[in-house]
Each structure stands twice: as C-alpha cells, then as structure tokens.
C-alpha cells in the first residue's frame, strides 16, 4: 500500500552470477510496477565503481528517498551500498539489499522459477524499504574511568593494563588486601616460581599507581546505567585503622585477646581480631575484624587502641558509600574451592589430615604456618605417605560439579613434586581419572613429576577414606591393573573442584549479568566474545568466568583490558539505532517484554515500558512477546513484516 516513498530499485547482474539464472530485466520491470517505485535499473556489476556512480546519479535524478539493491548477500555489500546511498545524500538506513544471488541464482537452475523467486525477494525488500525510517546512530557519551571488581591476579592485571593505558581505574576488593588466591600459592606450575615473588610487586604497583584508586574491604552494592555511563555505589567497610598512620608495629595484635582462625592460612593458623592478613598485604595496614572484636560499641575491651602509639586506631569509623561513575566494568571476582564438607566419601572435611589444595600450598610456603616444612596438621609429624586425589568434586554431574576444573591435574603434579622436594623419602600417591596437561611445558612438567620425582600415579577413583590408627586409610582402585588399592596415608590432599566464588554470584546479581548453568559468569558469545558479558560495557576476567590457571587468567584480564581500552578510546560510543520503540497508547505495562529482553534494556516507568536505546540490540524478542503489539523494532516493525509476508505470497 502507498507509503509515499520514492524508491529506486537497482538490479545487479553480477556478471553472469545472477543474470545467467535470473531474468534481471524482468525483475526490474516487475519492480517498476510496485507502489512507490519511481525508477529501476539493471547493471552488470552494481558494486563496481560505475555501478555505484549510476546509483548515485539515479538517486539524484529521480529525487529518490530510498533504495533497494537486489544483488548478493547483504553480508557482502550492504555496507557498500548504504555508504553509497549516503554519498548520494540519502540516509543509509533507507537502503535495503535483496539477496538474489546466494539465496536464489546460485541455488536454482530453472530460469523461470529462479526469476519468480527473485521477484518475490525483491518485492519484499521494496515493501520493507517503503516503511524504513531514516535513522542516525545513537551517540553515547563515555566516562573514561573503569571499575574493576576483584583484586586477585585477574583484577590486578586488568587494572594495571588499564591504568597504564591512561584510564582511571577504581579497583574494588572485598577482602582487606589485594592478592586473591594467587597470593596464597607457594610456587606455581610449570616453572615453580614463587607466587609471592611475582605477585607482590604487582600489588605494590597497583597501590602506588596514580591512576588507580584502590578500595579494599569494599563491596559494589549497586550498579545502574549503561555502557559508557555506569554509576556504581560502593560500600566501604570500616577497618578501624587508618592505613596512612599505621606503622605495622604489630603491638595491637599482641594485646588482642581474641583468637580466630586465619582465613589467609585457611584455618591452619589463628589470628587476632585486629590483624594483618599477611606481611606483604596491600594496603599495608592492620584491620580490625568487627565481627570478632569483643565490642566496639560500647567499647568492651579497647586494649588495641591503648597500645597503638601511632594513634592509628579509630573506633568511630563507620561504613560509608561512595558513588563512582565509570564507563566500563571488569568483573574479576574469582573462584572458591568446592567445599570439602560436600564430599561425604572423603570424610566431609572432618579429618584434620585431609587437606585441600590451597591448604597444602600454605604448608609448602616458606611464609606459611609451618615455615615451609610439610608437616601434618594433627601431630606436626612429617607425612611419609601422602595421597593426592584429583577430580575431587569435578566431573561428577550426578553428585557434584559437572565440569572439569582444568587446573587440578597441574597443581596436583606440582604438589606431588613439591612434596617430594620437601620429603624425598616420602611416597606421593596420585589418584587420577585422566591427566589433562594441555599447555606450554605442562605435559613435560607432569612427566617430570612422574619420572624424576617418582610420584606414583594410579588411574582410578578413591571409593572411601576413613581414619584408623592415626592414619587415613584410603580405599581405591587402580583401573589400569584392575586391582583394589588400600593405602594407609599420613596425609590426603584433595584437588577440590574450582567453583565460582560467592562474590561472583553477588557481583552477577548487582550487575544483572548472566551466569551459566554452573554459576560462572556467562560470556556474550562462547567463541567470539569470550571476555564480554551480555551487557555492553561489562567485561569478564579470570576464574569468575570459568576454571583457569594464572597465565590464562592474566591473558584474559589483559584481553578484557584491551576491550575496555578500545571501547573507551572513542570520544563517543555509537549504537545501532534500530532499537525497540514502545507504542505508549498500547502498552499496558505487563512487563512481558521486560522479562523477554536478554539485555535488560526495558524497564517500566509510569506503568509503561521504556526502552533504553543504548542497551537494546534490536533482537525483537520483546516485540514477538508483546501480545498487544505495543513494542516494535524500528525498521523491522510488524507492519513491515506483514507487508513482506504479503509480498512473498503475492497476497
């Protein structure tokens, strides 16, 4: 039906690619009979220079306001022809492509049939363009500051990369110190360099970097806005110690009467209510753990304040909120280990000498609870038989985690090897299902552990373990020999599955970004957008997105940083204008579209749906869901679809 448009249709022969099968002249003639079509042309190569010039001329001569080029796939030349239309003074959105090559001339032989189909395809493009609106890309201003959530190696790396690129960074860490899990590791595979030695300098760099604002002991509570323009509210919990004045003298912790397990040492040692997580903690300052303290309000004990000569302790500190405006967010909230207490077959975490990997890392660490000696927790004796169990909780969809935690093969090999370095006469037993050692130097590392360090690898599962006579009796099978194995172990180390941290779940909720079925952060596309979240402007790094080791974490962190740098290097962001639009009079505010939108681009205001143009990707899910036709995607409206259907069926 009449649209009042002046449309030109340009039919390309594509040499013989189209013309051999499709009667292009007939297509042009038919299109001339369409409502609103005022000029048609066919030409041998429309995309060639002369072809494009001819289009421009025709546009000018016939005062066209819209253009259909019937040619090859829009994937090839949509941009070409839209740019060309623009060069002729048209809006690029008033140019549509009808694909009569890939979807027609190349796949059909019969000239009559192919021509008939080409006519339908072209006609539907003509009808569609008749209702297209001229559109300009949506310009979005950007704040050149980045919020990084999580201060593990992923967050640290991303922050440094971003800051070094000249962007302001706000790094928010939940704990009292930077470092994440990596700072707990003793040495790292495959090179066995000391974790602290390589991480501490980065932590220092972060704390000193003029572009980085470090907010430890803080949490992101709320994030609003959209790419380029997020607003985050950050809760800064009180440490009750002024980091500037704290001299790290340790006097306070000496007098503190409260003793609680030390998280950093995974409970292998204790700390006081006022403490520093570890010597190299960053920021270098003590923290008063309010939940452990005997009482601040009213003050019950007050011993630490009395002894602090520097006067760094201030009981009146209160939580405060800070709002930061950022253009992008990197989420690097890391992992937790799958709880030992979930593993009934391995004693529910009840046996002191059954450790998890991280605890073992601490035992091996020179700065750890045993000063680098491998001693078993129960009696501080040197274990002679140590059983390492891989896949503890991993790859077990029926009972535990379905996924492979990817790093356990490697760190178990590392643990076995470290143990043998510490206790050369000890025996290291490793139960494994497969060895997955893909990675540069990884396979060699495992082989060295087996051969040089003589770790005994048993392929099979441990069915049960229990305590007996001060030992841990491990019952398992060696599936290679088919024999049952029983080992009286002094110590058992479980390579627990890596799962998304609780902080990751919290962050996903605050940021309203998706998580996959396992709870790891969902990437926008598993292959092509592995560091992007579904929400534009929010990026993912590290183990919060999936199990990975340090090199991979760092690589992803840098990749995320690069994405952010790319994003924020633009003076303005531009967003495709083919977004959803609400027809207010029809909207009843039922929120179905809100639920259907994968991008959270719709919200309700005054009982009507409102689309955030910047978030909308124009997928049309909302429009297909709304019963009342109250929301539609511009230039792909139901009206246009209706007319295209009519065109195809010649209705």
């Amino acid at each position, binding site marked *: 039906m009449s649209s009042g448009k002046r449309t030109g249709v340009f039919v390309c022969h594509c040499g013989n690619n189209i013309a051999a099968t499709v009667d292009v002249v007939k297509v042009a003639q038919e299109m001339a009979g369409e409502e609103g079509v005022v000029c048609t042309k066919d030409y041998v190569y429309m995309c060639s220079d002369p072809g494009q010039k001819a289009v421009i001329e025709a546009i000018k001569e016939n005062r066209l306001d819209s253009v259909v080029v019937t040619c090859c796939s829009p994937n090839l030349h949509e941009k070409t022809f839209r740019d060309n239309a623009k060069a002729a003074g048209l809006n690029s959105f008033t140019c549509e492509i009808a694909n009569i090559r890939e979807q027609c001339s190349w796949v059909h032989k019969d000239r009559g049939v192919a021509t008939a189909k080409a006519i339908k395809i072209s006609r539907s493009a003509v009808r569609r363009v008749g209702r297209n609106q001229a559109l300009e890309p949506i310009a979005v201003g950007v704040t050149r500051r980045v919020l990084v959530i999580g201060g593990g190696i992923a967050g640290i790396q991303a922050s440094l990369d971003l800051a070094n690129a000249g962007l302001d960074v706000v790094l928010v860490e939940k704990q009292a110190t930077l470092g994440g899990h990596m700072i707990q590791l003793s040495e790292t595979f495959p090179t066995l360099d000391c974790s602290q030695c390589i991480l501490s300098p980065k932590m220092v760099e972060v704390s000193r970097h003029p572009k980085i604002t470090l907010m430890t002991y803080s949490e992101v509570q709320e994030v609003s806005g959209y790419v380029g323009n997020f607003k985050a509210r950050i809760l800064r919990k009180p440490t009750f110690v002024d980091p500037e004045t704290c001299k790290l003298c340790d006097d306070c912790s000496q007098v503190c009467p409260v003793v609680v397990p030390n998280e950093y040492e995974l409970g292998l040692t204790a700390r006081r209510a006022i403490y520093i997580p570890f010597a190299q903690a960053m920021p270098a300052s003590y923290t008063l753990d309010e939940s452990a303290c005997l009482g601040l309000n009213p003050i019950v004990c007050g011993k630490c304040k009395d002894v602090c000569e520097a006067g760094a302790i201030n009981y009146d500190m209160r939580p405060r909120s800070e709002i930061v405006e950022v253009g992008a967010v990197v989420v690097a909230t890391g992992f937790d280990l799958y709880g030992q207490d979930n593993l009934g077959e391995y004693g529910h975490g009840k046996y002191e000498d059954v450790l998890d990997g991280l605890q073992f890392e601490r035992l091996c660490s020179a700065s750890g609870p045993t000063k680098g000696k491998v001693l078993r927790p129960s009696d501080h004796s040197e274990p002679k038989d140590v059983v390492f169990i891989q896949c503890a909780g991993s790859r077990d969809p029926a009972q535990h985690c379905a996924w492979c935690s990817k790093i356990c093969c490697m760190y178990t090999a590392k643990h076995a090897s470290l143990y043998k370095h510490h206790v050369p006469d000890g025996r290291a037993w490793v139960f494994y299902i497969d060895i997955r050692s893909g990675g540069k130097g990884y396979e060699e590392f495992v082989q060295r552990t087996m051969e040089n360090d003589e770790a005994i690898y048993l392929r099979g599962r441990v069915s049960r373990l229990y305590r007996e006579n001060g030992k841990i009796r491990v019952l398992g099978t060696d599936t290679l020999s088919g024999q049952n194995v029983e080992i009286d172990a002094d110590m058992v180390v479980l390579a627990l599955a890596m799962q998304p941290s609780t902080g990751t779940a919290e962050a996903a909720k605050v940021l309203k970004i998706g998580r996959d*079925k396992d709870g790891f952060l969902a990437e926008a596309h598993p292959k092509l957008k592995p560091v992007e979240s579904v929400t534009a402007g929010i990026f993912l790094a590290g183990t919060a997105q999936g199990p990975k080791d340090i090199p991979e974490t760092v690589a992803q962190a840098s990749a995320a940083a690069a994405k952010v740098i790319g994003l924020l290097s633009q003076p303005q962001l531009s967003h495709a204008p083919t977004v959803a639009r609400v027809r207010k*009079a*029809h909207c009843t505010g039922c*929120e179905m579209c809100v639920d259907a939108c994968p991008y959270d681009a719709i919200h309700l205001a005054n009982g009507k749906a409102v689309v955030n143009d910047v978030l909308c990707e124009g997928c049309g899910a909302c429009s297909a869901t709304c*019963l009342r036709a109250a929301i539609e995607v511009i230039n792909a409206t139901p*009206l246009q679809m*209706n007319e295209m259907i009519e065109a195809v069926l010649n209705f």
Partner: protein
Amino acid sequence: MIDLGALHTQVRDILETGEVRAVVGWRRGSRGMLAEPVTIATPEEAETLVWDPTCFHNLSLTLVEERKKPSWRPGKPIAVVAKGCDARSLTVLMQENCFRRDEVYVIGVSCAGSGVLDERKLAQRLPGVEPDSAAFDGDAFVCATAGGEDRIPARELMADRCLECRDAHPKLNNVVFGEAQPRAFDPPFAALARFEQEQVGVAERWQFWQRQFERCIRCFACRSVCPMCYCEECVVDSINMAVGADTTAAEKANRIRWIERSASRADNIGYHMTRALHLAGRCIDCAECERVCPVNIPLRLLNNKLEREARVAFGYEPGASIDLPALVASFRDDDPNHFIR
C-alpha cells in the same frame, strides 16, 4: 457451604471502616435466577450480595473494567469476591501489573466441593422449566421452580470447568469464606482428553473445528468477557482503539489488519488462534468465553490444550504465583526441542 451472613458482615465492615472503597460482588440479576456482577460502595448494599451456583461470572473482569474507568484511582483498595478460578485470574492480572496486590482486597469464597452450574445443562435437565433460584446443597443443586424443589446431583449440572477445577479454594485472598474441601470429580483436562480420544486424526479434527469456526458470528463476547483480554486495542479490532494524544495519523493509517472483521472462516480462525496463543499461560480456565458464546463454540478446548501443553512441556501453571514471569516471556533450557530439525 459458606456463611453468607458472615460475608455480608465482612463486606459491611470493610466498607464502613473505609478499608476498601468499593466491593465487587454478585447480586440477584434482572434476568430470572441469574446472579449479575455489581459494584457496591456503601455498607447498606452489603446485604444485596449473593453467593450461589449462578455466580458464574468471573468478577476479575468487573475489576478490570473498573480500572479502565477514568474514575479509577490508585490508592485505597477495591474488594472483590472471588471463587477459586477468579482468584487465579486475579493472580495473573497482578502478575501482569494490571493491579498491585495492595490495590485489591480479595474476599475468597470457596466453591467447596461444588461449583457453579451450567445454564445449558440446566436447560437440558429441566427442559422448558426455568427455576427461580438455585442453591448449593452438598453434592447437589437445589433448584426452586414453580412446581416445587428439584434436587439435582451437582455433577449433572455443574459447569465442565468446575468438574475439572484445578483449585476451588481461592489461594490468593485477604479473607476467605468456606472450607477447602477435597474434590472427587474429574481430573484436569478430562474433557480435552475425551475430545482427543474422539477426534484422533488431523482430518477429523479439522472437520470438527471447521464447523465450529464457521459458526462464529464474531460478536466478540468471548473476548469481552475474558479478564485477560484487557488490551487497549485488540489485534482483531478493525480500527485504532488505543488513540493517545501522541498517536500520529501515520500510526492510525498504518494499523495492521492481521485479520479482517468479516465473519468468514479463515478470519474467524485467525482470531481464535491468535486469541488462544495470547491466552497461553494466562488463561486460568474460568471458561467464561465458552459459557457466553451464543453459538456454542467449545473455546475451552483451545485454551485447555495450550494450558496443558504449558504444564506438560514447560512445567508452567498459570495463576500459580504473582511473581512468575509470563509463560511466553520465559524459557527453560530443556524446553522441548524434538520438533526442531
């Protein structure tokens, strides 16, 4: 049985205290024994409310109509007497933000072990006689006629949907009268199952439906009576009904006519299929559409079909909770995939 006196007292009380600004209920109608919907605003009118087997109207529709009036103001709640099915439809309406929970004061009435009657069944059971009243009486309806009283087993007169009632006791309520009683009529979707057994093949089904659809006179009573069909403008309206101050001429000119208003087979089908799909996950089986259809089109089958599909394939139960996302606005990873190549 519920205590009508207690219901009257409750209604009077909430109107007197001003807890609600009006009460939607049933009163004796002008046509014979039937009850009719009424909105009352004064405590004195409380006594006029009735509750008997002729209270088949789903009063959430009346509430929706109230809401559409310019006099509607948010704030003080309005009360509505609701059967089990009515309460489910209120739930869906709240799910869709048609009302906030605190805008509606739900006075639940339990159909306890019974249900409302079906006029057509009554006409068949008592040909040529029209009772003056009908009352619940345990497992029977007592119909008073000029010739005396007729006690008819409930099963014989009860509306089909009541025989298969999913929940006769209004779950959503501020106050509820009557007991939740276990029921022993038919399982849900019994009529649907019967139909499917009788009309097995595609050709048979088509024959059946063709006849039904051809009969439709497009009076739109089915849509008008449906509490979920509260759209400002329906896909089958012939002109723009939703005209706002900012509605442009172009918008009016470009209104899509998916379906013509002609009562022709294809257009009738277009209407009914669209409506069935629009009610998927929203229809709570009050069966009002089927009841009002003057030409007896078994619309309930269509809606039941999709309701069962939603339940079986998607584990979705309409009207179960205010917080549920809509059926068609949500999905599960394991939704059926078998039909896709």
